[in-house]
């Protein structure tokens, strides 16, 4: 019989350690204790596991006994016992696995609740005033994002330009409960943002990227749909739940990351906003066919402003699908909504 290792044996009942010699004996581990006159211990290998404890060494444990032996190294044929089900013969491991599965399922269900069901329920209960106040809380974060690189100031607008834009929006949202406000910010980022409560922020980068005034009207229709369907509020509620979870893992940085997430809409929200925009444009008598080129121009502007290696960042995976869904054929002529003078004024904003 080959003697493999020497180590320390602890019986698990008394605070007494003894020298032990480990050998293989058929299907068993044979433990010969120093100074013991009785028969050596025979532990069937299938009822044992090896554990490595950093700093302490390698522990041979028997599954229904508190006794164990501690060695500096493992015997060469100790076998792999790191697999999940090899450990499962131990009662504590079985309970651990059961609880792990149960808690993972509960956590997944809870996250689904916090992320989907709860926001849908809560968003109906929040008054418009509160929603508007919440939207304004997001504005400073948005300005920080827009302001990187020395930009981010609001462009002063002439009264007639503001009146023109407001008239267009009011026609798109007849009978709304929101009070809309439209601002243009100086930023190379070609985008528009609808804050909860009706504050719409356009960028000079967006206006430069669009090909015509009807395209801007289409973008406004898209943004007011986000507001009317309370997408921003829903994102904020989701971000609150996510923030609770992320801050538990990452501290305050996680909560901040979740708040930034409130500025983004899900693909589902974007699809709903596209569909809603087409309906609103038709109902208001504006050109629904302008949404498609507006999306294409925005995508191109985002791509062009990125260096070649980072271009993939701007390629929204479902852009093709959105372009397909917003395609409209037809010869019908529509009023532009924003007059030529206003359009030229918009394109000149923040240029001086």
């Amino acid at each position: 019989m080959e003697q493999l290792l020497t180590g320390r044996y602890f019986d698990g009942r008394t605070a007494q350690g003894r020298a032990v010699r480990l050998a293989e004996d058929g299907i068993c581990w044979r433990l010969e204790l120093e100074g013991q006159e009785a028969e050596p211990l025979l532990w069937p290998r299938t009822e044992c596991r090896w554990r490595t404890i950093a700093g302490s060494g390698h522990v041979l444990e028997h599954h229904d006994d508190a006794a164990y032996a501690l060695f500096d190294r493992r015997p060469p044929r100790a076998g792999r016992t790191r697999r999940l089900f090899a450990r499962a013969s131990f009662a504590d491991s079985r309970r651990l696995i059961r609880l792990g599965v149960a808690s993972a399922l509960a956590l997944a269900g809870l996250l689904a609740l916090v992320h989907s069901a709860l926001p849908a329920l809560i968003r109906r209960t929040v008054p418009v005033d509160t929603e508007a106040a919440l939207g304004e809380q997001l504005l400073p974060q948005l300005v920080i994002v827009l302001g990187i690189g020395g930009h981010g100031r609001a462009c002063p607008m002439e009264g007639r330009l503001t009146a023109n834009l407001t008239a267009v929006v009011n026609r798109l949202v007849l009978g709304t409960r929101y009070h809309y406000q439209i601002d243009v910010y100086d930023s190379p980022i070609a985008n528009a943002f609808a804050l909860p409560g009706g504050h719409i922020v356009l960028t000079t980068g967006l206006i430069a990227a669009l090909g015509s005034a009807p395209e801007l009207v289409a973008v406004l229709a898209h943004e007011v749909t986000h507001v009317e369907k309370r997408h921003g509020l829903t994102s904020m509620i989701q971000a609150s739940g996510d923030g609770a979870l992320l801050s538990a893992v990452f501290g305050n940085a996680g909560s901040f990351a979740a708040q930034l997430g409130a500025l983004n809409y899900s693909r589902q929200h974007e699809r709903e906003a596209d569909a809603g925009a087409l309906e609103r444009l038709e109902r208001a008598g504006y050109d629904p066919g302008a949404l498609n080129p507006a999306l294409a121009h925005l995508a191109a502007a985002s791509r062009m402003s990125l260096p070649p290696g980072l271009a993939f960042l701007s390629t929204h995976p479902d852009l093709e699908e959105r372009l397909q869904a917003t395609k409209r054929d037809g010869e019908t002529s529509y009023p532009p909504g924003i007059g030529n003078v206003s359009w030229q004024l918009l394109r000149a904003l923040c240029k001086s």
Partner: protein
Amino acid sequence: MSDNDHLSPIHPGSVLAVQPEGPRVDGPLKRVLTRDHSGQIYRTAFWGSFLLFPTLGFYQFWQKTRLRSLIWSSVELDGDAFEYTGRPMELLIGFMVAMVILVPLAALNQYVAVFISDSLVQTIRSVVAALVLGWLYGFALLSHRRYLASRTRWRGIRFSQRGSRVQSGFLVVTYGFLSVLSLGIAAPYLDMAYQRFVWNDTWFGDERFTFQGQGKALIGPWLACLLLAIPSLGLSLFYYSGVRLRYLLDEIRLGDMRFPSAFSKWMLFKAAFFFALVAIFSGVLVIAMIGVLLGLNSTVVPTGMANIILNVILVTLPVVFYLSFLRFCLFRFMVVPVLIETVRKGTLEGMLDLSSIGQSQFSTGYVGEGVASALDVGAF
């Protein structure tokens, strides 16, 4: 025949003292020894800290387990080292269980805080949130100790922490309230009352620890620490922590055995001071580096989306690395040296009859610290 029948009972009457059969002896009997695992500890702390972000924080359970194993096994008593037997999966599952409890509470609190503007509701919410958080903290403190104790063994005998976690939660809330009422002056009395609650229910096998520490022994250093808190920029708290730790170790008993440690009362102060220096110096370096990188970026890519994205990356990456580095420094300059020095200067006084100590029958539980982990109770 069961496997237990193979085992011969061993009750040799071993006594952890110089003279097993002799009379009681006062004074130091045997030094506690340390095994040098500091290299492994620092490597684990370093790489583990940098692995936290790429693994979304989940590596913390593996890092904690490894660090604890290494630190526990650094302490040797009478020829045998302590063993930490906890497993990372226990911590992970404990954390998930805690999340199941905490996420709805946090979400409810967030919802009321953000979406209800009524001032009376907000006042009630703040009070309830403080009470619940305080209670959870107390619950978590004892859970943390209970898990650590149950996963610590020496010569095969487990430690255990008993006592009600619910009661621990109420004690922390009550003591916290009384401490605020006394403007912090009564803190040592309340602290020692809580330590008595905890230590008098800590066990090694079936032998109970005892602790009779009193707040009056610490009130002088505490008042001095409070007076000097502002001029010393808070570092006087670390001097007090050193005094408090020594007092705690002086007063803890297992049977007739005491565990005093003669480390310098300034040890924690010095460690905190050095850590603060490293944190500030490296922070200034990181800010300067970010400034240079942003300057370079504005020269190479002056405008556009590329400039914005690169700026975000150039600010985020150094900050992430800095936070990881700070976490490592916390272990390198505070946690580990303080622990090692405390043990190195530790002595055993009095006598403990090991033959009378049997295995703990207290349930070990099978999940990790849970709420404690989620609330970040305990340094590691």
